[in-house]
């Protein structure tokens, strides 16, 4: 079959490893790619003492390279400590797959981002972030760059959907330029909560929609 993918990629695409969800995971993250529209969710179970990733699962709303990278990255991360797993690069994942077409780089880098985000989520949830960065407007905006605007497939910052960001004593207030009854309003609200709600110094996230 002369498709532009290696046998290894096709094997992981056909029979992806570690697919699904973990009930009550110790950490999870959802990453979406603005340009490609693909999404990856990563779930972790981490041994609290050794910090070894005991179990890892992923879900993909994506193309073949996205699914294959999700599969290989979970294989590579399983059994490693979170610090070791953090260091896994896209290149290592691509090499393990026997190479990926250059044009597919960003569909597949998403899976690597997903793993890193899940580990970060674990560290934040378990107080492992040594230098606790205070949540500022800049931090909020940086995180919102990972929230997709489903209308365009680009993130909510690039598409100027976020009109206003305020951070005041643990209260984050956002104004989203969509009517509250817009079909994607609940999605966007949920995604924003997920990206910001758990930050160590955030007590409340208020999301307002325009009329």
């Amino acid at each position, binding site marked *: *079959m002369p*498709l532009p993918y290696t046998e290894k990629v*096709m094997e992981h*695409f*056909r029979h*992806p490893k570690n*697919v*699904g969800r973990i009930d009550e995971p110790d950490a999870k993250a*959802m990453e979406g790619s603005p*340009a*490609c*529209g*693909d*999404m*990856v*969710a990563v779930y972790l179970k981490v041994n609290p003492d050794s910090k070894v990733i005991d179990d890892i699962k992923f*879900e*993909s*709303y*994506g*193309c*073949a390279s*996205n*699914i294959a990278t999700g599969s290989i990255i979970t294989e590579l991360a399983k059994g490693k400590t979170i610090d070791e797993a953090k260091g896994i690069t896209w290149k290592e994942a691509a090499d393990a797959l026997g190479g990926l077409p250059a*044009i*597919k780089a*960003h*569909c597949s880098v998403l899976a690597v981002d997903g793993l890193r985000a899940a580990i970060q989520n674990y560290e934040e949830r378990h107080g492992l972030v040594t230098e606790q960065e205070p949540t500022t407007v800049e931090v909020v905006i940086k995180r919102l760059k990972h929230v997709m605007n*489903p*209308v*365009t*497939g680009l993130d909510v910052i690039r598409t100027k959907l976020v009109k206003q960001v305020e951070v005041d004593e643990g209260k984050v207030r956002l104004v989203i330029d969509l009517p509250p009854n817009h079909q994607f309003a609940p999605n966007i609200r949920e995604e924003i909560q997920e990206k910001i709600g758990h930050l160590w110094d955030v007590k409340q996230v208020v999301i307002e929609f325009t009329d």
Partner: protein
Amino acid sequence: MSDFVYLDNAASTRLDERVLEAMRPYFFETYAVATSQFGYSPGVEAKDALESARSDLASALGARAEEVVFTSGGTESSNMALKGVAMALGEKKGKHIITTRIEDFPVLNSARALERMGFRVTYLNVDETGRIDLQALEQAISADTILISVQSANQEIGTLQDIAAVARLGHERGVLVHTDAAHSFPRVPLNVAETPVDLVTMTAHLVHGPKGVGALYIREGTPLAKWMDGGFQEFNLRAGEENIPGAIGFARAIQLVTVEETQRIQAMRDRLITRALQIPHSRLNGHPVFRLPHNANISFRFVEGESILLHLDMRGFAISTGSACFSRSLEASHVILGIGGDHERAHGSVRFTFGRFNQERDVDAIADAVAEVIASLREISPLGKEAN
């Protein structure tokens, strides 16, 4: 590829053996070029064959033979129409062109190229079924409008435009009208004696004809600059030796398309739409009635098109998708976005296009395969779990 079920007939089609038979003598016996008609008898035979293909094609269109120019395909025909009119009228009449947001790339990118050369282009919006608003078209016409280019049928979602109304409007307002009929002619008949279009793009390889040959209908008197320079072929409008076997093959391919066959194809297509829409969270893209008889375009939520394609390929089926992941530009289908769809709808959109060599049994086979593939991809998708 013998057992392979090919349902991507809007990308290209299998050549009909009867077309090849008609073409064969013009490779091995009458291989002279038409330009040699004044020098030796094989040249005369070649010229006669070319002219007979031209008049066959012209009569299928209700045109006169002198109004049909053979080209290398639909892309060249549309380039010739847009750039030829622009070069002929840009300085004399004006620099405004009207087209639609969902045209195929030959028209869309010719329009963009003309914009870079100082022309002004209006890209008409379409409604959620893919049809333009004739009132909006009328309002877009101004004193400097030189050309309206509206496709007969859409390449992805199959929506048919009311070309007769577009053509009448253009004529009332003294504006030339071009239509890209590459995806519709001759399955959806077009008669230029009744429909006053000035320029029509046609291609052979989408109706079981050979690749590399197309035609442009040019109504008599239409100002069109020559932009392929060289010899004096094709009424001195398009230089280059004529592709005589291709022209013969094109004319033969057009003759082989029948109403009965199109009805058979449409019945298969209808059955596939019915079956595909039984899959949860699916929707038909395009117009339910005004659509190409061989086109079905469906969006499935929570899954991505390239993944669907690769799984179907492993099961022996070929289809297409509007997903950004599938396109070389990594841009989602401009057609799905043009009909008001979001990135997600393009992401999970797939196109099935039928042709002469599809069998009725293929329909249930692909419908079953699609249902399986969608279910297994949804299994691994982070989306839609609650909705199930």
